[in-house]
């Protein structure tokens, strides 16, 4: 599935919930199910500091693609992370670099990306794209070199 298809899938999935409580229960479940990041990467280097909650993000190239794992100390943040990972993990770096993550707004969780929340999520999305841009640039350099 492409990034756009995965986003569409999540939007579909969230349409089932018409009440905030069901929606958050689902996010909490996703948070609990998020595969744990390798504990070796849960260090200062991989930490994205938020004021309210912390996020750890690890990216590794696999061919033209990027693999992401992540974690957070707050379960709701973790649930939202799992959605980001689901959309961007195992996708071509060139696609990640230019993607727009519109689905968060569509499923009504945009408030968690607001700077006042300062939960690390906003910086994480930015960081994922930066990894994509860096990786794409490297591939480009190799192709031309």
């Amino acid at each position, binding site marked *: 599935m492409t990034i756009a298809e995965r986003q569409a899938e999540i939007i579909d999935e969230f349409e089932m919930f018409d009440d905030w409580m069901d929606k*958050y229960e689902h996010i909490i479940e996703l948070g609990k199910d998020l595969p744990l990041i390798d504990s070796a990467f849960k260090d200062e280097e991989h930490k994205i500091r938020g*004021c*309210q909650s912390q996020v750890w993000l690890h990216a590794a190239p696999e061919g033209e693609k990027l693999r992401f794992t992540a974690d957070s100390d707050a379960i709701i943040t973790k649930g939202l992370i799992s959605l980001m990972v689901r959309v961007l993990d195992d996708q071509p770096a060139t696609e990640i670099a230019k993607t727009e993550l519109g689905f968060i707004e569509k499923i009504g969780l945009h408030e968690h990306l607001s700077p006042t929340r300062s939960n690390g999520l906003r910086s994480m999305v930015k960081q994922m794209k930066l990894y994509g841009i860096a990786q794409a640039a490297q591939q480009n350099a190799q192709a031309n070199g």
Partner: protein
Amino acid sequence: MQKTAAKSFPIERIRADFPILQTEMNGKPLVFLDSAASSQKPQQVLDTIEQYYEHDNANVHRGVYALSQRATDAFEAARKTMAAYINAPDEHEVIWVRGCTEGINLVASTYGQRFKTGDEIIVSHMEHHSNIVPWQMLCERTGAVLKVIPVLDNGELDMTAYKELLSERTVFVSVVHVSNALGTVNPVVEICNMAHEVGASVLIDGAQATPHGKVDVQAIGCDFYTFSGHKMCGPTGQGILWGKRALLESMPPYHGGGEMIDKVSFEGTTYNVIPFKFEAGTPNMAGAIGLAAAADYMTSLDLDSIEQYEADLLAYATAEMSKIEGLRVIGTASEKHSVLSFLVGDMHPYDLGTLLDKQGVAVRTGHHCCQPLMERFGIPGTVRASFAFYNTTEDVDRLVSATTRAVKMLS
């Protein structure tokens, strides 16, 4: 809740004075439990500010015309009101500042100029960042050393340790009156007495004290007292620094500019008398007048009644919230004001706060600008419900049921 004070307290009428309390949040009536961050404003304050701009607005202390005189009179009357609010002996000792943060920075930057290498400044482990960082910056400039009064497990200051920290090297003590993160009311009279015995001056950060009851700077015996208007029903951007006349007169000015001067020439400038020496530039006139209106409003409700009402509310909230399994209150000092900081099991404050918000209950989560204190307790932060006199037992009940539901979802 003990209904003694509550019964005579005109809570219905009071709530009607606050337009924002009629708001709905996420489809539910708003339960606002974040007054420690910033309080709501009654119509009386809003009207005063509007009135000022509609009828009295002109720059103060400058014009010969009637309108400027009227603005100046209102501005200086506001100063008098604020002096009375904290029982300052002389209104010229009351300096308008933007808020508590600026008050502390002013003292650190001006009074602090006399400190030398090896001089010791004492703060406590429960200070707001605004009562830590200005002193650290001063220490960097002067070579003075910052000492920290430890906090006990119940959230009270370790007064024995404080006594041991005091010495002839101590030049200054700066301590919070009421902790914004824990609610602890500190023994400020004793703190001042002990500091004065070694010849140190004392600043009290009153940001969380002036919104909740009577403050008497003379009875406290401090040398400086500062607070923010926006936490006590006043507008943002206006607060007070009070200081003893002799100290204020001995201090160099803070900012340079208009108003603070006596005579300016390129050969040398002489400065105005206090308080104007510390009030460079056009002041926040509407802010000053609005803050005085807030002080008048609170005084009209009787500050002792406010204190009693809030004490009853906090006792009720503490008792009810403690029934939630796994909930622990952070900060259990014997004397507290209007703050209930808590955690449940190992649930993250962000998760709890988010689920409370979804249910229309506004609380603060995180470190509350007290990172050293959170580190001291080994926690990432807390969920903080903070109360004002416009909150009710129904608000507490909503907090309890929303927390119960959130805990269930997160278990």
